């Protein structure tokens, strides 16, 4: 019984890691709180759903299409709008992005309506060591983990990834070394949007999605990033799994209606007691 809760926690935790990793990356590199993140997740989910349903292609390919589109969207949003306030105080950038989020979210509600939609894939479930695991959830988990891992690898080994890390360590020094900082910013933002879309695509396999959920996704990203330490990929993984477990077991202890609150309260505790996150030091990869 406990093992089943652990398994559920890990399954949802991997999705959470993927959900938060883009948010964390953008925070680390651009030093802004991306309030649009939840909206990116929902947009990614909708693109996956519509691609799969209207064009009849497999959910996996649809999710990748959604990722590509969101990368371009994120790149443009940063280049055209957010780049103007990147160096401004937190209050300015936060409020501006919140304004953009209100705009996009209102457009989404008008365009997609608030009705929940989902892909409703039923691949059945498999039994492993006496645990029942839904195949769709396992697939979503695999997609999330593969993409998070790929991001980690790219940041460490590709030229652009190293440029991103350089900018994050010291944007002035990076500029002196010939790195085009605004371009790195825009690409980072694009990657953040891409990861959000991937999480959205994976979530669409498991949960019904509505535009109203964007705030929930944003809130979870906050919690996960603070738990794991704002701004690092491994931190997002740790935070995601921690929140997954916490929600899974919190449901037993406190009842399901308190699961969000438990996450937020834990986040406040971590913020105050250990602002670098549970994973410890501020990571750079």
């Amino acid at each position: 019984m406990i093992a089943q809760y652990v398994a559920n926690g890990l399954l949802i935790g991997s999705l959470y890691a993927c959900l938060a990793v883009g948010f964390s990356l953008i925070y680390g590199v651009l030093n802004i709180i991306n309030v649009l993140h939840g909206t990116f997740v929902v947009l990614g989910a909708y693109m996956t759903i519509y691609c799969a349903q209207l064009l009849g292609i497999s959910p996996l390919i649809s999710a990748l299409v959604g990722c590509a589109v969101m990368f371009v969207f994120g790149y443009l949003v940063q280049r055209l709008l957010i780049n103007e306030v990147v160096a401004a105080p937190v209050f300015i950038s936060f409020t501006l992005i919140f304004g953009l989020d209100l705009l996009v979210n209102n457009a989404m509600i008008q365009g997609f309506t608030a009705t929940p939609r989902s892909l409703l894939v039923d691949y059945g479930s498999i039994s492993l060591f006496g645990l029942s695991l839904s195949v769709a959830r396992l697939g979503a988990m695999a997609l999330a983990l593969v993409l998070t891992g790929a991001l980690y690898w790219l940041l460490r080994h590709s030229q652009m990834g190293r440029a991103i890390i350089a900018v994050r360590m010291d944007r002035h020094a990076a500029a002196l070394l010939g790195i085009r900082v605004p371009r790195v910013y825009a690409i980072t933002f694009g990657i953040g949007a891409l990861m959000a879309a991937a999480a959205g695509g994976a979530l669409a396999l498991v949960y019904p999605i509505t535009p109203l959920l964007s705030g929930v996704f944003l809130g979870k990203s906050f919690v996960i990033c603070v738990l794991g330490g704002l701004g690092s990929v491994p931190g997002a993984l740790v935070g995601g799994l921690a929140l997954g477990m916490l929600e899974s077991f919190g449901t037993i202890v406190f009842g399901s209606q308190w699961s969000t609150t438990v996450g937020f309260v834990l986040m406040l505790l971590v913020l105050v007691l250990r602002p670098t996150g549970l994973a410890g030091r501020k990571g750079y990869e």
Partner: protein
Amino acid sequence: MPRRTTELLRGGALIVVATAVVLFGFGANNYQLQAGTTLAMAVVLCLAWNIVGGYMGYPSFGTAAFFGLGAYAGGIAQTYGLPMGLAWAAAALVGAVFAIVLGAILLRLRGHYFAIGTIAVVEVMREIANNWDALTGGAIGLSLPILAGSPRFAGIFFYLAMWALALLALLLTVAVARSKFGFGLRCIRQNEDAASMVGVDVFKFKVAAFVTSGIVIALAGAIYASMVGFIEPKDAFNILLSIEVPVMVMLGAAGTVLGPVIGAIVYVVLRELVWVNFINFHSAILGVIIVAVIYFIPKGLLREFSLTRWRKWTAPPAPAGQG
């Protein structure tokens, strides 16, 4: 002009405006009364936020937490039979205690962390109000006893009450702006470590500012609750309020006495004019206003169109080296 004359003129202007506001209340129709009360509430919230967000420079998104807390504290006190005035006092007290506790915890954080922390508090409070059915009525909401007398009397009463609170908030802001306390807050905004170095008791100042702001916002919440007679968690702890208020203040000019008032007036008038016609695009229009304010008037209307700036434009350019 000698300082004394300026002071007298300002006092006179305040009295004239206050009289006009009171007279308007007695002559207005129901819609105007309601709009006037909304405006007064916006002015109160903006002035209160301005102490923490403007003078002290801490990006607080916790307005909705204090507002909702005040609304629920006052509302619950009233349902337990406390008279309205006492219920409002209770709400102010609860707001103060909450601000001390929360301030002692959250004000250790800076920048992003403080912003995130205040938002999290709003979320937690809403969930608590949602789930603590026995005390708050849960998601269904809480109904308050209605004020005796005709609806028109109630309308005028709450209109005046809200404007009285606005006046109080304005006088409080003036007091803060002119005192050593306000000076200390401005020091903290510019450089907290340096302020601490020159002898500002940073932590005490920050908590005091948080408490001042929290009491006023909680009072506004309590008056609002008595006025509408029904509160529910998603209304009382609405995160949009936490965003709207700073935007209004920025629109006017943060860290000034009149900026929040001007911002609130412009914003509320804009909202009344535009939103009535586009009810489905409520939040999109708010989004457009936010984006426009940040791109085009980040320092606020008051500073954009101030006399000094006008003089700077018309005066010969300053010699180089003076920045």
